[in-house]
């Protein structure tokens, strides 16, 4: 879908032309909005930014040990 932007006839938005997907764009917008909130709302919103997931890389058809990532907004 994100092929060479110059070749397609559709007018792609600048973020897609730069290789970003809609979800990435939307999440960046949301976190920017959250960072501009007034105080009590900002700390409530901070809890929404946390992600927690486990990644397992696969090698030779077997999963390796999973790494658990818990990102908070400070990254």
């Amino acid at each position, binding site marked *: 879908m994100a092929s060479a932007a110059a070749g397609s006839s559709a007018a792609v938005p600048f*973020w897609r032309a*730069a290789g*970003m997907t809609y979800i990435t764009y939307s999440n*960046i*917008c949301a976190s*920017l*909005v959250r960072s*501009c909130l*007034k105080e009590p709302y900002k700390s409530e919103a901070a809890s*929404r930014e946390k992600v927690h997931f486990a990644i397992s890389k696969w090698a030779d058809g077997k999963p390796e040990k999973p790494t658990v990532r818990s990102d908070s907004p400070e990254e």
Partner: protein
Amino acid sequence: MYRQASRLLIRALGGGRPVGRAFSTDAPAVPVEDSTFVEAWKKVAPNLEPPKTPLSFMKPRPPTPSSIPSKLTVNFVLPYQSEISNKEVDMIIVPATTGQMGVLPGHVATIAELKPGVLSVHDGNEVTKYFVSSGFAFIHANSITDVVAVEAVPVDHIDPSLVQKGLADFTQKLSSAATDLEKAEAQIGVDVHSALNAALSG
């Protein structure tokens, strides 16, 4: 005992389902039972009742009324809560990428991608404004509108000093950005903060 099991299970599932949300679905106008599935089931397990398929749980699409309804029904949802659910209002204005779009009852069915901006809900004399980070608005032919956004805040929850600071930061990042990706991120920052600024002053 097992003969009744599937019927009991279905009753347990069906009873817990929330009822009464006028989310206009894309189900066909008449509830359909998947007849090929039912026949295949009967061949394999003639004594058990066939389980219901998701298609038969879905409420049929409400018919498009022949005359334009007087009020717009709005559903505004965020990933973590439902801001407005089934509210009947006169008009909403959504910040579509093509500009501020006003939606009145009887609006043509539309899917609009939203840009960061202000969503205002007009009901009689009262106007409620939310700043929406991005999302989509689905306007259905029967004047039900679903707006989905990742983040939406009432405009008075926004801190003007943080907005100004963010705008200055990102404008500076935009001029010093090197790769395409950095430029895109800085541009997004500038867009969002300008929209926040406009929301605060408008």
